[in-house]
């Protein structure tokens, strides 16, 4: 007589299956493919595969002039495109030695913080959606729409703004902008509380988010994780404070941190960051100086040979440009340091041993954006 256990070991063993999550999947937020090895519902290993929207932005820079390239940077992280414009302009300005008027710096901070709010709003909605709560998405998109309308008023664009120029910004605030923004900030102040009611105080949400995807500061540093993900692990590093650029020292805001390092901590950090950004916007509008918004920059700008690596604190972490100039009108090499690339590289570690459902939650809590990774 045969023994089921010894003669047919594979009959009793639960079989590992390979699951392709994506590239077309509702919760990979774009064309990202996760190759999951599953034992039942437990993840044995995960391997991200991406590059589906690779557009060769770094190669493109080598055939475009510095001025022409600014609008391309909008396409890197389309949700916080101002940050990309900013770091590119900062890098080019550092190479060319261009001064930026004080008012332009204020406007840059203003737009960047509005952009951070809208980017975090999209993330918040998508995070709820990943956990099966559809309703927060419609609320956050309603608010994001208000921010986009402000940008529409400011530069005629809703997502790819092309608002920055070398040496400043393209135009001053339109007359009604200040009032509308103040109204929005006043309206926005109580919103995180509403989101708290919808998500943060919901017991199901809490048990789904707590104690999953634990990211220790050591792992975070090893994988160069930055931004809210790093601050969710209790490391108070924010370029706006640690290496202040532009006029950030003028404003009063907190670097939000959370000690736990799990998905919930990253969630809390982002919700609180929206509040802080709203505070900064209010302060910018109050203390807006008079003057030029753009310094004189020659139309055909030849940048002296040299190199610069400049970083800003984007919504997702440290976003930087490494520019090498050979003295012509085009950069010889343009390297884009994007936060999501490093942030995603930590995912295989975080999802080892969790359930499929948690993969979605952890991926959502990392807030990656695919065009930025693929470039």
């Amino acid at each position: 007589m045969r023994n089921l256990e010894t003669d047919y070991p594979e009959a009793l063993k639960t079989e590992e299956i390979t699951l392709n999550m994506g590239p077309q999947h509702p919760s990979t937020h774009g064309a990202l493919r996760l190759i999951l090895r599953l034992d039942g519902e437990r993840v044995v290993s995960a391997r991200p595969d991406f590059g589906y929207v690779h557009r060769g932005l770094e190669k493109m820079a080598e055939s475009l002039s510095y001025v022409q390239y600014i609008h391309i940077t909008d396409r890197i992280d389309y949700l916080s495109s101002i940050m990309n414009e900013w770091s590119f302009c900062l890098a080019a300005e550092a190479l060319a030695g261009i001064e930026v008027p004080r008012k332009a710096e204020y406007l840059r901070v203003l737009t960047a913080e509005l952009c951070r709010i809208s980017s975090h709003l999209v993330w918040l909605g998508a995070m709820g959606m990943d956990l099966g709560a559809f309703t927060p998405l419609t609320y956050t998109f309603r608010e994001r729409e208000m921010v986009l309308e402000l940008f529409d008023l400011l530069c005629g664009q809703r997502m790819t703004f092309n608002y920055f120029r070398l040496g400043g910004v393209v135009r001053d605030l339109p007359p009604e902008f200040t009032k509308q923004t103040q109204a929005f900030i006043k309206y926005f102040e109580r919103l995180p509380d509403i989101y708290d009611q919808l998500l943060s105080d919901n017991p199901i949400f809490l048990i789904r988010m707590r104690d999953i995807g634990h990211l220790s500061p050591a792992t975070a540093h090893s994988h160069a994780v930055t931004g809210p993900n790093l601050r969710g692990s209790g490391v108070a590093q924010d370029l706006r404070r640690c290496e202040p650029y532009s006029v950030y020292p003028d404003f009063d805001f907190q670097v939000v941190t959370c000690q736990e390092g799990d998905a919930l901590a990253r969630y809390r950090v982002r919700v609180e960051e929206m509040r802080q950004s709203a505070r900064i916007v209010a302060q910018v509008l109050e203390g807006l100086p008079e003057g030029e918004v753009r310094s004189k920059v020659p139309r055909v700008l030849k940048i002296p040979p040299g190199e610069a690596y400049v970083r800003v604190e984007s919504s997702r972490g440290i976003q930087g440009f490494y520019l090498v100039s050979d003295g012509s009108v085009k950069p010889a090499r343009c390297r884009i340091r994007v936060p999501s690339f490093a942030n995603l590289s930590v995912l295989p570690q975080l999802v080892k041993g969790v359930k499929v459902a948690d993969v979605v939650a952890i991926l959502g809590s990392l807030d990656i954006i695919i065009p930025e990774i693929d470039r």
Partner: protein
Amino acid sequence: MATIIGFYLLALLAIGAGILLVSSRNLLHALLGLAVASLAVAGLMLGLRAEFLALVLVLIYVGAVVVLGVFAVMLTGHFEKAVLPPSNELKILGGGTALALLVLITGVILIQPLAPDAVPAQVPIQKLGALLMTDYVLPFELVSVLLLAALVGAIVIARGKED
């Protein structure tokens, strides 16, 4: 007339599903055969006005046994082609058992005189419950011990050797 047609239809269905159950190489098909057979037998019981038994049969066989079986099939082996390992070693023993069972059942049917109108009076469930708790309490408890043993065995197999 209608009941007779119904009876033969259900009986054919039960036999057909039973043949599928024992002959199919595909585990899932076999289990679906079991489900259909159980439903057909439940239908026969309804014809005999044993409604409670019919419903319990559906509830337990279709709702629990088959579902668990399908669940197990899906968890183990290659789900695309869950095929039974061929085993013909127990031909004689199995055949013998089947034959003995056949003889037994046929004997019982032959010995026991069937009432011409084989529709028994409906048994109230209260009575059934009372009988289970009084006269037949020992077999009832024995069956539950058997189930407990099966449960423990399942846990032992499921936990595996590593822990």
